């Protein structure tokens, strides 16, 4: 394994840099920019059993060093993903993590079974933490019992690694995390967005049509780091970090805190090459310091 290679719950990645669901499309939008197979992997836009239109506009707005989104999980549906997108990713050798969501345990299982029929999916990431839809998502992520049920059911439906994406809004996140671990999750990913809001005093109206939206970007990073740090000691399975990561320095913070890999999210909106630059920055750091990424994981020194 090269200096950058890592292993996440049985899945070997050529480097620890993935892209976060919903911030990288289906990975096919980057043809003009770079070869996404250079990344550790990509997490797809959240896939549902049926295509979804999403929320009415306005769907995004900027906040200090961050943004709010209320996309409403618009996506092409698992069928079209399997037919139109996956074959191209597979042919290019991209490591694909399918991010999925549903409003019932059966729904999660049905999507997983559909994906099981296809080659080229390397892991399934369960979004039990979307703040922007009324049904499906966050209620699973708040309750240890429900989270365990979804995890166990998907676990039975696939041979592939199962990752569970944590909501920062679960009351007792460590309890949810341990419940997922006990139910057979191979890794946890954290964090999804936190619900936020913005109002325009000029027009006295709420900026997002959905009123509230998921808060992401650099401003989220310290909160995400603290949560990842807590999770690393709460469970034995690997933790994949997400939240305001846009540079190699940001990624190093999370690796040192104990994350086994990272996902680049909102930063890709600022620069489509952000994730590639994180890989390059990590390579330079490892070379200069004479270490491998694996040696860095959890290597933070106490004050």
């Amino acid at each position, binding site marked *: 394994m090269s200096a950058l290679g890592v292993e996440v719950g049985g899945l070997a990645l050529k480097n620890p840099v993935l892209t976060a669901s*919903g*911030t*990288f*499309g289906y990975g096919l*939008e980057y043809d*003009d*920019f770079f070869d996404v197979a250079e990344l550790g992997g990509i997490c797809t*836009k959240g896939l549902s059993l049926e295509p979804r*239109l*999403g*929320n*009415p*506009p*306005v*769907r*995004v*707005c*900027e906040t*200090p*060093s*961050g*943004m709010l*989104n209320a*996309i409403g999980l*618009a996506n092409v549906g698992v069928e079209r993903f399997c037919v139109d997108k996956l074959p191209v990713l597979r042919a290019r050798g991209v490591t694909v993590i399918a991010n999925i969501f549903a409003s019932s345990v059966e729904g999660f299982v049905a999507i997983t079974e559909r994906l099981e029929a296809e080659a080229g999916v390397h892991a399934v990431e369960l979004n039990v933490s979307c703040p922007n839809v009324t049904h499906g998502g966050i209620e699973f992520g708040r309750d240890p019992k429900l989270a365990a049920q979804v995890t166990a059911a998907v676990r039975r439906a696939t041979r592939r690694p199962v990752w569970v994406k944590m909501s920062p809004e679960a009351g007792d996140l460590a309890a949810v995390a341990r419940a997922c671990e006990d139910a057979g999750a191979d890794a946890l990913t954290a964090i999804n967005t936190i619900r936020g809001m913005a109002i*325009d005093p*000029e*027009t006295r*109206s*709420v*900026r*997002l*049509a959905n009123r509230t939206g998921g808060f992401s*970007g*650099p*401003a989220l990073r310290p909160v995400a780091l603290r949560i990842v740090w807590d999770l690393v000691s709460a469970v034995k399975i690997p933790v994949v970090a997400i939240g305001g990561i846009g540079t190699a320095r940001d990624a190093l913070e999370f690796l040192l805190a104990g994350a086994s890999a990272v996902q680049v999210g*909102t930063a*890709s*909106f*600022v*620069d*489509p*090459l952000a994730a590639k630059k994180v890989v390059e920055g990590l390579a330079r750091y490892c070379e200069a310091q004479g270490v491998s990424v694996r040696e860095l994981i959890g290597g933070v020194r106490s004050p």
Partner: protein
Amino acid sequence: MSSPPPKPAPPPRRAFTAPLLRRESIGESYHVLSFDLPKGLIAQAGQFVMVHGQEWGQAPLLPRPMSLLTSGTAPSLLIKVVGEGTRRLARANPGERFQLLGPLGRGWRPLSPGKRALLVAGGVGVAPLLYLARELVAQGRRPVVVYGGRSAQDLPLDDELARVAELHVTTEDGSRGRRGRVLVALEELLTSDVEVYTCGPERMMAAVAERCREAGVPCEVSLETPMACGYGVCLGCAFKTTEGGYAYACVEGPCVTAERVDFTQHAAVGKAQGVAP
């Protein structure tokens, strides 16, 4: 109405970094910025770029969508100051470095053979239309332009337009041209041999689109939805379509045929965004 010729495939997109070459201010609110890009930016009229100052750091975080005024080795933008990002752009000095992502989206559809272009611009919406007007003139197809603003101060680059088009000006306060909105000048120009291209405040475009529909004249609009990425991955730039559902302005637009846009749904967008009528 016969269907107009299809749009040519857009040129490849690139992430450039380029220093500011020049900033020319037009009054207090409008600024033309040009960038030094020896490699050259190949684009089509109506396409846009996402622009972000390398000195901005993490605030403003996201790049700002801006229509191209010109492309080539010194691509330029017309900026209207409305908030922090545009304020920074308006203060930038030559040499300051910017990231330009582009060209993005789909530009204006080609003018049908035998037709004359009627361009309807509102304020800063003039940028992609001036690009188009210059291109049409180069093809020997001088367009007619209706250019409207609140007052004489809100008509940046009107002199440039006058050079390449038959120009009709309207202002709401009557300080230049005809008093009123663009519709007052549009009426007599909407003949069966024109095709309309419009960019400006959403309510203006909705009104223009409605008049064109009544007159049976094809109309192309350039949408300004809020955007996070500009290249099709965030799904933030949704606009409601008349066929039902949403389309994405940064990929299928910003220039789209007016028939596709459900403006009744869209008025809410302008309101939530504080877009002036």
